[in-house]
């Protein structure tokens, strides 16, 4: 536990001592804010339109739901931004250590590979969670002027943390494969994008393959969370995905030891 904390604190420190954390939080929040504003304006426009037509509709008002039309939409665009950003958070985790020779320090110290890996993984996930948590401000704005349903919002955030853990685990794996950070970022980005779009090919595959392909899609499982449903099968999917990626990473890191 002490070793894990030492690595975790070191990684957190390095995110916050360098401009990385601030630049990423700044860029993300700016983009997210811009998108949120537009989604909100659009919703306002709809509301206005429908209220003007209300008299012709004779009480048959369409269901203008704040959660569905603003929150869900907002979350749907946010996950794409994260797909771009997370590989940049994870790229240096192992690649830099390998390049600068500090991997030799870690691997000749009395710490296990798992302790190093989990320290780095949770540090990166914490930074992600912290930045995601800042978007709660937008939901508070909705609360101030409307009546959003907080249940689906909280479950969406839970889904977001699980999705983030998946992204980070893939990024960590990519970073462990190379000592070049650009290669790490591209590998992570490529793998995530593929896992994102994998259910597209499901439409042209046979019934069994289609099921498997759409199950593999990392984004598919997020939709339940956004609707306010916490399905244990989705949770299991994300957790087992993370576990598997991290397991592969430990194999990669230790491969040096069994390559005789």
């Amino acid at each position, binding site marked *: 536990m002490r070793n894990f904390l*030492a690595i975790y604190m070191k990684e957190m*420190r390095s995110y916050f001592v360098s401009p990385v954390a601030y630049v990423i939080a700044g860029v993300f929040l700016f983009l997210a804010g811009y998108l949120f504003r537009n989604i909100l304006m659009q919703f306002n426009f709809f509301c206005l339109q429908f209220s003007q037509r209300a008299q012709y509709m004779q009480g048959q008002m369409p269901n203008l739901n704040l959660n569905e039309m603003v929150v869900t939409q907002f979350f749907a665009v946010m996950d794409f931004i994260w797909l771009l950003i997370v590989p940049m958070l994870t790229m240096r985790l192992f690649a830099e250590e390998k390049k*600068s020779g*500090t991997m*030799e*320090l870690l691997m*000749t*110290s*009395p710490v296990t590979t798992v302790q190093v890996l989990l320290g780095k993984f949770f540090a990166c996930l914490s930074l992600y969670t912290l930045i995601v948590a800042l978007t709660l401000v937008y939901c508070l704005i909705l609360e101030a002027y409307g009546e959003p349903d907080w249940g689906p919002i909280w479950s969406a955030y839970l889904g977001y943390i699980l999705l983030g853990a998946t992204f980070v685990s893939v990024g960590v794996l990519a970073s462990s494969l190379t000592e070049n950070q650009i290669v790490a970022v591209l590998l992570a980005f490529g793998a995530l994008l593929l896992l994102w779009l994998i259910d597209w090919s499901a439409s042209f595959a046979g019934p069994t393959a289609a099921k498997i392909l759409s199950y593999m899609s990392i984004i598919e499982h997020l939709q339940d969370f956004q609707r306010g449903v916490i399905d244990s099968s989705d949770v299991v999917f994300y957790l087992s995905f993370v576990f598997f990626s991290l397991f592969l990473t430990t194999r990669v890191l230790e491969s040096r030891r069994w390559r*005789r």
Partner: protein
Amino acid sequence: MIEVRELSKIYGDVTAIENLSFEAKKGEILGFLGPNGAGKTTTMRILTCFLPPTSGTAIVDGFDVQEESMEVRRRIGYLPELPPLYTDMTVESYLQFVAKIKGVASAEMRSRIDETMERTGIAHVRNTVIGHLSKGYRQRVGLAQALVHNPSVLILDEPTVGLDPKQIIEIRETIIGLRGDHTIILSTHILSEVSMTCEKVVIINNGRIAGEGTPQSLMAQLNQGDVLRAHIAGPREQVLAALRAVEGVVDVAEDGGGSDTEVVYTVTAVSGEEVHDRVARCVVDGGFRLKELRNLDLTLEDIFLHLTTETEEEVKV
């Protein structure tokens, strides 16, 4: 303290080291000498549990590097060729991090870090970011990193490489100051370093041990006959003939020196005889002028070249 038995490491088709065996006793400084690519770093990486050996065993402080890796790691301090530094950390926070992962107890942390910084002469830069330090200071921080948990064994891979002469002397003195408390293995391709700091030398070439012993014993082993360096002014042919005629002289070679009238000769003579006097007399008697006459001691350089070229010939055969 350190026992290496028949250690081999093969990377694919390349044999990095082959059947290495050597020992280092407690408190000793062992010099690991060899040209670049001889297998020094590979051996050190095996000793520090960074790489597994292909075959053979290495025992550090009673623990096998493969079977009880964690115990070994607790007991060694390792300075790789490239010091493993986090350039965005300050010296002190870096040492705190290393002390934590090396398992230094929280209660001792403060005193261990202070003592290490004192010993390696970096206490006054403790709040400086490592990236802003000069190469010499980075090397010292690297050394401090290896020392912070007070390990019984220190493994230093080319600790003076890339430093200026003053820094080299300082680092060397620091290392000599550690003698006795720690068993030290130090690799280098600089021979003078070994004769200055080490009690024992292992010469390694092409992954094999080419020679082993104290610097003195290695020199004695190869010191066959006296070699003189004579700088003489006089007609070349006459001088050569006169020198060859001297009793006890085995061989005379011209070492160059330029002109026809002034040449530096290397005179090899039978060991033990006082050839000096006779050479000097012969020069005076012949009417030449003697500008310099001195004994050439066989240096570690010569031993090194001798041993490493010998093994190369063996390999060719």
